[in-house]
């Protein structure tokens, strides 16, 4: 028996197992909300379309009809999201013609924990805006971290292997090198995928400063 007390060893083992379990779990999840349905016995489909766009645009951006004339409206968010990497919420409003008036339904999706509010909260506010009821203000997104962090790859990166190679990664998931060649980045946990002269899988270091893998080594300026 070593000199380390057994209680302490048990504590360390449990701590390690517990934290490992929390790390191996998927770090984000899709949260979906549906079920709110309003039946209007008077009113036109045009009215539904106008209200659908307005209610989505009150909380999300890029509101558009999924196909011309479909009466299905979709928007994404949160407000201010500047690219695919930052999109963590979406909402849809479907208008259906009825014998008298119309029926409208609402579906929302949020990526947790990145999005600052739940899909239920978003859908309730969109529906209440549609029907003219009071809404609950939604939390605003936290500012996107910059510098060396483990949540994104935004920033300027310098190749450790070739001093000429420099990559600028933006908040929209895009990257551009020193010659103007563009690509994309995506980060999931500490696994990064760079689309830059092919697809490359790299690992982000725990301090958010180094990317390595597939023969590449980069250091972030921070």
């Amino acid at each position, binding site marked *: 028996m*070593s*000199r*380390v*007390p057994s209680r*302490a*060893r048990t504590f*360390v083992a449990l*701590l*390690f197992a517990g*934290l*490992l379990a*929390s*790390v191996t*779990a*998927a*770090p*984000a*999840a*899709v*949260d*979906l909300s*549906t*079920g709110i*349905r309003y039946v209007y016995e008077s009113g036109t489909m045009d009215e539904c379309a106008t209200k659908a766009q307005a209610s989505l645009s009150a909380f999300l951006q890029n509101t558009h009809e*999924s*196909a011309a004339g*479909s009466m*299905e409206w*979709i928007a*994404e968010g949160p407000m201010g999201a500047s690219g*695919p*990497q*930052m*999109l*963590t919420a*979406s909402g*849809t409003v*479907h208008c*259906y013609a009825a*014998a008298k008036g119309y*029926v409208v*339904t609402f*579906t929302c*999706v*949020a*990526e947790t*924990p*990145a999005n600052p509010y739940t899909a239920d909260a978003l859908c309730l506010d969109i529906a209440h805006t549609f029907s003219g009821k009071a809404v609950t203000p939604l939390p605003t997104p936290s500012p996107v971290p910059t510098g060396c*962090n*483990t*949540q*994104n790859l935004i920033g300027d990166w310098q190749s450790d292997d070739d001093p000429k190679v420099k990559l600028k990664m933006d908040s929209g998931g895009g990257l551009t090198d020193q010659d103007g060649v563009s690509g994309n980045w*995506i*980060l*999931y*946990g*500490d696994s990064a*995928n760079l689309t830059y002269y092919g697809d490359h899988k790299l690992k982000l270091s*725990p*301090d958010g400063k180094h990317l390595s893998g597939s023969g590449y080594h980069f250091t972030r300026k921070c």
Partner: protein
Amino acid sequence: MTSRSRTAFFAAAVAGALALGSAPARASLDTVIGPRTTVENKPFADCSARAKAALQSTMQNAFEAGAGSGEWIGVGRIAAGADASSSAVIECHPTGTGYAASFTCAAEIPPSPDTAASLCNKLYAAFNAAPAAGGAK
């Protein structure tokens, strides 16, 4: 340093390292409204049966948002017990003599192997291939 303090230091280091490693990720949320299908001369129950069957065959689960609502939800996971990486809703809506079904899909990429569009296309195909009401479980 005593053995106890070494142990405590080790535990703190492990906790710190793993906490850093479990920081939230940045995936991309992909959402689409898929194709809408309109079926004439079929009961509303046919739509629900097809929606349920399509979700079960594609996503291995299906439940109705509210009993009789005709809004069917499926959740996709990359492994049993994992968090949801995709979800889909098939909405059934009665029309004059039949029904309309619409498909809304969302996928978190990564880890979802399907985009929202490909998931919706699979559901649409499965919906149309499903047996009519009475044949569905």
